């Protein structure tokens, strides 16, 4: 049966994720308001790149926040890229805001400075190999909680840029901006299939 994955589409680069999911033979649907959460099954969700402040605000005001938080806590597979990573983080070192806070990581927002600090590189992602990584005003993970089951999947210059904890996979770069779909495949195979067992 074809997998069905929701992509949060209140703001940001959600179309790119949907495009990749479709190319991988997965049915993707946009989540713009609460009723979208309940149109059929959802076997996973992607929180895309964009502005975390905007997404966090719209999630709350469109009354999706609590339902999604509960679903993620209950094991809904989730891939968070850049802003999506910020939404999942338990703590943000340079911002008072908190969003879902379901993942035991501490992140730094805009960690590489302004747009002039944005960069592209190729680096290793554990279990996949070398992949292209595009960082746009990116955050990074400062630390992961030691006594928790957080696995570090990629690091650049000593900073964690990808990690996984149970049903949650996060990257501080944008796999959706390249034509390399291996992070999405990893999410579909390793993360979302696990939770269905």
């Amino acid at each position, binding site marked *: 049966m074809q997998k069905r994955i929701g992509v949060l589409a209140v703001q*940001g680069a959600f179309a790119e994720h949907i495009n990749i999911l479709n190319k991988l033979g997965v049915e993707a649907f946009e989540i713009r308001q609460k009723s979208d959460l309940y149109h059929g099954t959802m076997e996973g969700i992607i929180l895309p790149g964009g502005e975390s402040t905007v997404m966090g605000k719209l999630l709350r005001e469109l009354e999706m926040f609590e339902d999604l938080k509960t679903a993620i806590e209950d094991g809904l597979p989730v891939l968070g890229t850049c*802003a999506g990573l910020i939404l999942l983080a338990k703590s943000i070192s340079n911002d008072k805001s908190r969003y879902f806070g379901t993942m035991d990581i501490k992140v730094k927002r805009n960690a590489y400075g302004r*747009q*002039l600090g944005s960069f592209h590189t190729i680096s290793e992602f554990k279990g996949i190999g070398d992949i292209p990584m595009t960082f746009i005003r990116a955050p990074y993970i400062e630390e992961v909680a030691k006594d928790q089951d957080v696995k570090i999947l990629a690091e650049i210059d000593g900073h964690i840029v990808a990690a996984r904890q149970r049903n949650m996979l996060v990257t501080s770069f944008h796999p959706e901006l390249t034509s390399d779909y291996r992070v999405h495949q990893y999410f579909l195979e390793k993360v979302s299939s696990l939770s269905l067992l």
Partner: protein
Amino acid sequence: MNQRYELNKNLAQMLKGGVIMDVTTPEQAKIAEEAGACAVMALEKIPADIRGAGGVARMSDPKMIKGIQEAVSIPVMAKVRIGHFAEAQILQALEIDYIDESEVLSPADDTYHIDKTKFDVPFVCGAKDLGEALRRISEGASMIRTKGEPGTGDVVQAVRHMRLIMKQIRQLQNMREDELYHAAKELQVPYDLVCYVHENGKLPVVNFAAGGVATPADAALMMQLGAEGVFVGSGIFKSGDPAKRAQAIVKAVTNYNDPKLIAELSEDLGEAMVGINEQEIELLMAARGV
């Protein structure tokens, strides 16, 4: 294509589905961020006041721009006069996230635009039609917006520009390949950009609506016509309740296809900006820099 340009186009990708708001003080920037703006545009006076005051409109005071950069965590954009590459150098030195080479300010050069390929920071430029959009892109713009008619609160010109750009894109898409050379000549743009539009049915960069958006309905209209996001200037801070109106416009852009929700959002927003009808305009900003 160089990597910096790709990164700059990618930042615009992240702004999609969002609202970029004009602000003139750190306080306004905070209101915009709290209302859900995906970026703010720092400028000296909002377009309606530029119209009101007359005189020459220039790049904002770097001190004000720095104050806004410190006040918010979202990207900060700022405007330079058309062709004024020295103003752009200053903004790059301030590490601005996006430069708007804008017809809202008084043009500094009536022939040449800035050679934007010489800069590391990204540029957004205005356009009324496809030729203008592709000329700006060939100069290095990594984001396009309609010109509309800033500071009027009248959406008619933004609609005209967005419809025209989308129509010309559809026309290029439907042409035979051997007709593209002539199309490039007529549009006065590089052939390879014409080929890109023919093959992909869209601009190679993100395209926002700007100029005249004053209500949630205006924002939804622009999104339905093909905009990937919206710039709002005077429409917010010239209205009765800026915070409420700003929030309503943000939500209208996200759910532009849900008239029921937009009906709720449009309720009780207080006074919209008074506005100027097209026939009453004394200064056409859209005519600047083609």
